[in-house]
């Protein structure tokens, strides 16, 4: 069963000048994880807010748990949990206050709300800081508290908007663990992210969106195949470029790309570290010492490059270039 089903969503801002969503459709099978992957300004938050009944689309329809988000928002709100892009917790209160308050708003009795708050604080390693004002929390703690608040009554469907943006690697790892636990518990999850790695780690399916449109969808493996798996990147001095292009091409089997400015030669490889060693041996035999050599796993940028033929533009840059165009 499709627990989340969005069809032909269109949402415009500023009287139609910004098309945040442009005929976007997606669906999430019950009990699975869908990751919506896209750069800044792609429309991720807009989708999430429509599905969470906070925003009405200009056209198109969406159902969550079988309920139409426009006609039966109340029913939808009863089964969803939402953790928005920016941790929405009451800064002036402490962690315990926040969770108990939200518990009460989910109509738990006082004692049940307290019990649930304590469970969640424990589960999210916040028990020790429960009585400290949120102002003193780190970004990761805030994020975890926000997630906890969306889990007070176990939701059937969970929406997480960029749950790890702004977290350090450790915070991100912790958040991933928490999310994986939730998924094991059987929740249907839609999460947005800017990191392919994150989608890879957590999601069954991925939709890549840009400028409000779906530009690709599939499993993480399928997407990576489109990009070509790992990339080998070598930087050499100018007079060694030709020989290096040849060596990399031979190992990769594909025609390497040469970036003039960075003097970077890159090509997809399928044998991982082995390819790296082979290229190094071959360069060494020719007496070439690379300035830098690395094996890169595909990033969102690479996915974009492969799918759209252009680099994912930053929204700010986008604006600037539009203004210049005028």
């Amino acid at each position: 069963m499709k627990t989340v089903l969005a069809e032909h969503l269109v949402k415009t801002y500023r009287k139609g000048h910004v098309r945040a969503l442009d005929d976007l459709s997606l669906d999430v099978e019950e009990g699975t994880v869908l990751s919506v992957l896209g750069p800044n300004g792609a429309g991720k938050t807009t989708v999430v807010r429509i599905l969470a009944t906070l925003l009405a689309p200009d056209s198109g329809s969406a159902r969550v748990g079988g309920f139409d988000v426009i006609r039966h928002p109340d029913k939808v709100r009863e089964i969803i949990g939402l953790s928005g892009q920016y941790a929405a917790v009451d800064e002036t209160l402490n962690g315990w206050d926040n969770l108990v308050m939200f518990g009460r708003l989910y109509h738990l009795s006082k004692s049940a709300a307290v019990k649930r708050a304590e469970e969640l604080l424990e589960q999210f390693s916040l028990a020790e800081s429960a009585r400290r004002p949120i102002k003193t929390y780190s970004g990761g703690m805030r994020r975890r508290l926000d997630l906890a608040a969306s889990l007070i009554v176990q939701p059937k469907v969970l929406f997480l908007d960029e749950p790890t943006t702004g977290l350090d690697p450790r915070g991100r790892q912790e958040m991933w663990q928490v999310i994986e636990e939730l998924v094991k518990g059987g929740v249907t999850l839609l999460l947005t992210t800017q990191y392919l790695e994150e989608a890879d780690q957590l999601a069954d399916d991925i939709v890549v969106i840009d400028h409000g449109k779906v530009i690709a969808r599939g499993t993480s493996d399928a997407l990576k195949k489109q990009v070509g798996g790992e990339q080998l990147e070598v930087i050499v001095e100018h007079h060694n470029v030709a020989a290096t292009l040849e060596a990399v091409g031979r190992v990769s089997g594909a025609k390497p790309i040469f970036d003039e400015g960075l003097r970077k030669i890159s090509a997809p490889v399928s044998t991982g570290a082995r390819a790296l060693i082979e290229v190094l041996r071959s360069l060494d035999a020719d007496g070439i010492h690379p300035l830098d050599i690395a094996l890169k796993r595909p990033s969102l940028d690479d996915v974009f490059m492969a799918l759209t033929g252009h680099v994912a533009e930053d929204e700010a840059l986008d604006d600037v270039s539009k203004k210049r165009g005028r």
Partner: protein
Amino acid sequence: MKYAISDAWVITKRQLLLLIRVPEVLIFSTIQPVMFVILFRYVFGGSITSGQPGGYVQFLMPGIFVQTVAFTLAGTASGVAEDMKKGLIDRYQSLPISRSVFVIGKTLGDSALNIVVLLVMGLAGFIVGWRPHSGFLKVMLAFVFLLAFGYALSWIGIFVGLTAKDARVVQNVGFLVTFPLTFLSNAFAPTTGMPKALQYFAEWNPVSTMVAACRQLFGLTNKFGVTAGTYPSTHPLIMSLVYMVLVMAVFVPLSVRSYANSAKK
């Protein structure tokens, strides 16, 4: 629907909890009026003749009460704007609670803050010589009146906060509006000294009618300004009630609607 009242109460309690968790809020909302009490009582008090037994402070305190209550409007507005910015309103709106719960809870919570602030102000007034002599019931009635006024104003605060979105701007604008309003009134000095046009304005000013109403309830005979002789200056109690009803009639629906649509922008 059956949860609406208990849900609103949860939000109200949040506002009260705030007073405990962030005592600065209470301190700063009382420190300024207390300063006003001291300033006016001892700096200007000597030169303003009131012709009232007990002296200027008898006139001053009702003015301070009304001003204090009026100033909390800016606090309500900036609090709401802050909640908007932090995404808290998104969270409330994704909860299975009725949409009016947040606004009702918020206004009640701010009234609760007013109770505490008025208590402190009353005490401060008592210390510097304020002695209402109309009897317990009438004094209580005056405070109920003040709270009702504050409650009506908090609906304006909600609306402003929801529409403006930037807490600092709201705070400043709130000040820019309430400050002149409280001074172009009979709150601190008789309106009789003002140019005629201003006298009319001052007498129609809801702050004046509120202050005059409180003075009446506290048992003062001279209400500081009936020169222009407008209806509001001679019937301050009724006019104050009319103003409150008007404010509520306009801003309750506006605020509720604006809250329901706030996420849709």
